[in-house]
């Protein structure tokens, strides 16, 4: 029996993404029509029942976020879709943006309706510029068909969506950085408090959700929050798009019920990762992008859902699953992760700006075989300080992968201190 689901991804590849007719023929906009007849609080209750954990990476309960915003006074309220998908190894939002944009649009309109918003913004990363143009076409098509703009479906409710482009800054995926970027400020994250729900876009109350979270909204309205929750598992409802890449046989986006598959299934099952390419062995895997934890073969039987993963020190994060084979040295890999954060740190807060390069320096010592015992202490202290004291999620999570490796593969660090690593210091044929 197939372990994959086809809800979020049901239309992808099967319709013309810019055709309202195609979208409607496969169930599109029926949720919107239903929502327009519902009480706003009813919709929020469905969101709460759905147990939808935000799909951007931080896994904040979406229903809770909606309820909080609902209780905040102030007008106008803005709806913002975070389509700044930038976690390396993550390309699941791209699937929706490219192949089923109207599901996102529909979700945003429903959110707009709940909060009586007039304007929504979708911030799409600059690297997806071609997608931005197509997305605008989809918006125009929706407006033409009466699903967007003035008097949506003759309900009297009007809502518009504006496409905003990024220009290459991972940190704009942080919601406050994203809002700054929309406001034509530099995309460095804001000081919090105040919280975005209260002082968000243009200083107004704002809802920011991820692409996939918005695409889940029509599903939740359509099938009901409880049914949606049951697609997943306890406290972690729904299905989830997972982007699998790296050294797996298959590199693609798959959809699974949260908690209904294990990490082993995701990596080895034919319909998912299909095992390791070129007959190599699995060495480790990186979950949720560069800011996520690293898992090892001994953790493969963990179900892919928040609670079970957390017990193992792992998490879903952005939904990325990067598979690494035996040819990858852990230290070398961590250096790549660290380089990424060095490139992407906004630079304003000390721990993140300065910390990443010291982590890089020390990892380089391990890679060269010149590290000492004290370097462990330094790494741990850096990692702890960055996690505890950085201003935003970027700095706080920059050492998550390092922490996993220090915890589970300290021996590999120690081996490097002795100049031993099958990848970095390969022995010649005589074993010297």
């Amino acid at each position: 029996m197939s372990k994959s689901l086809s809800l979020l991804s049901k239309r992808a590849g099967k319709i013309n993404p810019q055709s309202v007719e195609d979208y409607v023929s496969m169930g599109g906009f029926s949720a919107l029509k239903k929502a327009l007849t519902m009480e706003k609080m009813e919709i929020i209750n469905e969101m709460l029942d759905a147990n939808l954990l935000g799909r951007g990476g931080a896994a904040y309960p979406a229903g809770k976020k909606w309820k909080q915003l609902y209780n905040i006074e102030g007008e106008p309220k803005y709806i913002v879709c975070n389509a700044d998908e930038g976690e390396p190894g993550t390309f699941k939002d791209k699937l929706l943006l490219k192949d089923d944009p109207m599901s996102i649009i529909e979700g945003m309109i429903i959110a707009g309706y709940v909060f009586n918003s007039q304007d929504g913004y979708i911030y799409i990363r600059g690297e997806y510029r071609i997608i931005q143009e197509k997305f605008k076409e989809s918006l125009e098509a929706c407006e033409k068909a009466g699903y967007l703009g003035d008097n949506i479906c003759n309900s009297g409710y009007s809502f518009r969506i504006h496409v905003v482009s990024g220009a290459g800054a991972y940190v704009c995926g942080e919601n406050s950085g994203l809002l700054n970027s929309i406001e034509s400020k530099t995309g460095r994250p804001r000081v919090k408090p105040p919280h975005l729900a209260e002082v968000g876009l243009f200083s107004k109350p704002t809802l920011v959700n991820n692409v996939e979270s918005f695409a889940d909204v029509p599903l939740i309205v359509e099938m009901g929050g409880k049914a949606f929750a049951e697609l997943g598992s306890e406290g972690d409802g729904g299905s989830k798009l997972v982007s699998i890449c790296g050294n797996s046989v298959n590199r693609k986006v798959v959809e699974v019920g949260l908690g209904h598959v294990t990490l082993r299934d995701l990596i080895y099952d034919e319909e998912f990762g299909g095992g390791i390419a070129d007959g190599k062995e699995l060495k480790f895997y990186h979950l949720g992008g560069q800011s996520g934890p690293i898992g090892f073969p001994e953790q493969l039987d963990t179900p892919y859902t928040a609670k079970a993963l957390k017990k193992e020190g792992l998490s879903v994060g952005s939904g990325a699953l990067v598979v690494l084979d035996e040819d990858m040295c852990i230290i070398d890999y961590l250096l790549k992760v660290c380089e990424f954060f060095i490139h992407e740190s906004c630079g304003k807060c000390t721990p993140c700006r300065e910390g990443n390069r010291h982590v890089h320096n020390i990892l380089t010592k391990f890679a060269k075989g010149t590290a000492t015992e004290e370097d462990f202490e330094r790494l741990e202290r850096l990692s702890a300080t960055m996690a505890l004291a950085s201003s935003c999620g970027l700095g706080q999570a920059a050492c998550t992968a390092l922490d996993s490796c220090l915890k589970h593969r300290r021996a590999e660090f120690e081996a490097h201190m002795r100049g031993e690593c099958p990848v970095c210091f390969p022995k010649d044929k005589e074993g010297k």
Partner: protein
Amino acid sequence: MHIDPNKMVTIKIDGIPVTVPSGTTILEAAAKIGIKIPTLCHHPDMTVRAFCRVCVVEDSWSRRLKTACNNYVDECGEVFTNTPKVRMARKTILEMILANHPQDCLSCPKSGKCELQTLAQEYNLKENSFDSVFTRVPKQEDNPALVRDMSKCIKCGRCVDACQAIQGTNAIGYQNRSTHFSIGTAFDHPLNSTACVLCGQCVAACPVGALSEKDDTERVWDALQNPDLHVVVQVAPAVRVAIGDDFGLPKGSVATGSMVAAMRRLGFDKVFDTNFAADLTIMEEGTELLNRLQNGGKLPMITSCSPGWVNYVEKVYPDMMDNLSSCKSPQQMFGAIAKTYYAEKMGIPKEKMFVVSIMPCIAKKYECQRPEMNDSGAQDVDVVLTTRELAKMIRSRGLDLTSLPEEEFDNPLGLASGAGAIFGTSGGVMEAALRSVYAIVTGKEAGDLDFVGVRGHEAIKEASLDLNGTTVKVAVTSGLKNAKILLDKIRAGECDYQFIEVMCCPGGCVGGGGQPFRTTAAIKAQRMDGLYRIDKKSTYRQSHKNPEIQTLYKEFLGEPNGHKAHELLHTHYTKREIQ
């Protein structure tokens, strides 16, 4: 989170309960019970940036540490400010900053006053556990006033806040990201070719040695030790109420007498008072105002004492240069008079005269080098020192302001009215002008010489005065951001003021860029009070009543705004291109 300042919140900090209004930060609440949480990027008058992260504390409600500077008591449980975790994080952060900092405290202009140095001492940072990542960038000395040694920058953002949020000049800003994150001008242009007016508020804000005034103390030492030179010094009003800060006197202390004594012991041949020149300015500016009012001159007339402000008009509002009074600033009037009237009176050849100014200001260093400021036939003022530089010279001479006797200024350029004294605060020039203008126009004495309507800290202050049936509307503002609001209104024809006082720095010269470090709004207020105390106690409280001023006109200048006065005491302005 709902902040209601009328609601009181009680939290425990390090086990001690403290009750504060809702919306109070952890930092402020801790200060209330005597706990000083360390900070670097925080400044009480600035926006909260929370860049440095040095002020982190533990909060029982949070897994992570919280920055005390921006988190409110409303949203925390029990706070702990000195746990092992907190100390570990603070030390690590400081080590990271130091690993990217030149270790040359000995030669640093900020040594002894550096906030980073203090914290490094307090946290026992000796050997850094991290490898140095420091790279030196060239020191930028592209203007006569201000030095930027960005190798020392710790990226706290205080200077940017001063330049953008407080002054609105937008000469410097952030650029780049991550390890390249830095502070500079657009497209790295030299400071002087940007909108920078050299107000030095960035220097005053800098916690470390990245920004400083161009140090001219050696030039003054050389002059003092040159037997061929007659070296005179003038000291601006706002200096006497601030210099005590650097010698441990209570804030706002009036240290005129001991400061004069110190300067005499430094070796100045004569110690004079810029307040005298302020009185002279009132004579000229008051007359100019009356002329403009009577003869349909360009109105509103705007004061021109503040060189940062003059720079701003020349750079950003050149179309409004005609609104500026043509009067030179008191410092430049003094220079021109010192090298003519005084030199002649004393029989000293001009080229042997050396005029030093002690100013609360950095832009004055630029002003004295302007080509228009050579009306005596030589550079009217040779060197400008800031309040901080004077304090340094006093210490270097082995003197302590607190143990010196009180001495008087020399004559004839040392006698001043109380009106001259209040030039050092926002509102003071206006008040001084009104006192004399009122008396001259109406021929009457104002019953109360305190025109309190133009005093205080509001962004824009307004008043009106009845001059023989004609109502004159005046406005006072300080800080370029406020000035911009006024200028835009004038440009749009939306206001009918006749006379406006603008000072470049918020609060006026008491908060100038050359004043002792760690000046805050509260300290500025104490300095203002000090100036008003001087005024209150003065024998003469109106500039035109100053007998030395009367003598000066009688013996030398003739009439206010007369030919000689125009030659020596007035100037013109030039549009300056900016990038």
